[in-house]
């Protein structure tokens, strides 16, 4: 996949992004600020991790960037131009910005073959290619995400594949239009633990070889640390802390980051919790 050629320094800039939801209950109206004032810039070849709990607004950011939802305020700028909302312009935007969904069991259409899932975006974004070329390109992509030999998977349907394999198909689909930016919304949280790293490694490797800009959305601090160049911690719609992974994890500044770190399981603290509650028991 070498047809993604950024001329000049390409950027995907998120500027003061806001998203409010109006909740109606009876005659009362409440405004929920799902995302308030979020700004960051994705660059090719860099991974930014967006860390937060459910309800922090991190998935809303992903849906706005991939134009599944509109922002209430602020802007998404691709190479300086505002992201379109419809028509040809949106199609061009989507050929550059793609998304990998959380649940590979839900993000592939059970009715269609694996090949269909990869061929469609190729057909849409490369209308000049012949059917044969598209098929070849689709096979290449499947092999690229380590579904080899591609012929073994192409005609299968999603339910015949394991979770990890499905997520690889989803990654291939996201790469198909020739995207420079990938938004990965919790790409491994639904997978079995022993295959998570395999999928993350694949994403990391593609990111390096294709020079992708990746927004890695997760609630897992450990993978965020090892997988990204920068970590942003999101809490109640705001980014409360950001910085180099090691400094955020090892030297957290914001109170919420500390709470989050404190809550993460860490085998190195073996027995510590037990000792703590015991000590509590003695004092009370």
């Amino acid at each position, binding site marked *: 996949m070498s047809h993604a050629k950024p001329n000049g320094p390409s950027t995907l800039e998120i500027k003061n992004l806001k998203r409010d939801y109006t909740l109606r209950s009876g005659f009362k109206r409440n405004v929920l600020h799902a995302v308030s004032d979020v700004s960051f810039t994705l660059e090719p070849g860099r991974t930014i991790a967006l860390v937060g709990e459910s309800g922090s607004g991190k998935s809303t950011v992903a849906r706005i960037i*991939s*134009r*599944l939802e509109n922002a209430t305020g602020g802007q998404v700028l691709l190479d300086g131009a505002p992201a379109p909302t419809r028509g040809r312009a949106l*199609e061009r935007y*989507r*050929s550059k910005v*793609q*998304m990998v*969904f*959380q*649940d590979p*069991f*839900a*993000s*592939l*259409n*059970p*009715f*269609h073959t694996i090949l269909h899932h990869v061929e*469609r*975006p190729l057909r*849409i*974004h490369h209308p000049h290619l012949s059917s044969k070329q598209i098929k070849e390109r689709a096979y290449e992509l499947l092999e690229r995400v*380590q579904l080899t030999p591609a012929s*073994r*998977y192409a005609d*299968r349907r999603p*339910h*015949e*594949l*394991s*979770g*990890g*394999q499905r997520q690889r198909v*989803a990654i291939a*689909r996201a790469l*198909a*239009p020739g995207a420079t930016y990938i938004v990965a919304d919790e790409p491994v949280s639904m997978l*079995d633990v*022993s*295959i998570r*790293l*395999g*999928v993350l490694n694949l994403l990391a490797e593609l990111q390096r070889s294709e020079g992708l800009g990746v927004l890695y959305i997760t609630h897992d601090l450990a993978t965020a640390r090892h997988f990204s160049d920068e970590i942003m911690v999101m809490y109640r719609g705001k980014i409360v802390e950001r910085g180099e992974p090691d400094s955020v994890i090892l030297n957290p500044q914001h109170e919420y980051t500390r709470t989050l770190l404190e809550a993460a399981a860490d085998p190195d603290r073996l027995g510590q919790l037990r000792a703590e509650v015991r000590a509590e028991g003695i004092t009370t």
Partner: protein
Amino acid sequence: MADNTTPEVPVRTGPTPTSTLATIRIAKNDRKRRPLPRISGKLLTGIIIVVVIALFGILAPFFVQDPRFSGNDALLPPGDGHILGTTKLGYDVFAQLAWGTRGSLFVGVVAGALALLLAILFGVLAGYFGGVVDEILTLLTNIMLVIPGLPLVMVIAAYVQNTEGLGPFARSSFLVAIVLGITGWAGSAVVLRATAKSLRMRDYVAASRVAGERPLRVIFVEILPNLVPLLAAQLIFGVIFAILGEAGLSYLGLGPTGSITLGTMLNDAQTGQAVGSQAWWWFIPPGALIALLGTGLSLINFAIDEIVNPKLRLAPQAARNQRKANREGRSVSENGAIA
């Protein structure tokens, strides 16, 4: 299972499942990749009934005498020459039955298909697009839903049949089918709207939008195929509704008097005082055929239900298997089932 060189289990030997029950399902699927779920007794019975009746309706009219030939003796009981006897006007009942079946099936299929088409148009579009489109389409659907069905059909049928200039079309079964079709879609539309609405929220629909698919393609290529079992059920429901509706209309004298259907046969029998003259061979065969057709189609519908919602089928099956294992002494505990 998995070796360390590949990060995952190879497909053929069994994918990593989400639960043990899923393992079983996948193992089963993997062993024999059935294109269709196993055919249940219900489905088989339903299909046999419907196919036999359909074949009768399609083929029999080629082999019987003209159903409007009145040269036979009147009110002959079943016997030689006339398997099912004759009517008061000397028509052969078997010939009438053959043509009537064809007529009823025609009305059912045309009306059912039309109703389904309208239901998709109103239901799926409303469910997918939401917003103002949804409001308008749902309003129309609801209006159709609250208008009492049969009186409306009667009014429309009476009106079009008295319209000038339609000629023989005014009394044709095709017109009746259209009337039944445009009055019978609202219920299906409600079901389809709800399902389309939930499918629309699925990730794969969002994913195909991100991939760049246009809305109509999303509806017809990504959503509709997953609705096929539901659409089939709705179609069958529509067919049953139309066949019974036509029978009702005909019985009231508002049916396609220009053609022969099972309903017009009953109407003839009624006006010809078949019950009073104890000519049971005149009204029982068409009545029984309508009932049988309804049964067959309903059985198919139930079977589709079980395919769409596997719990209906799997739970009793699972309990049976467990009891069998207990009987055969494979279980160590006294009673494995939860009380």
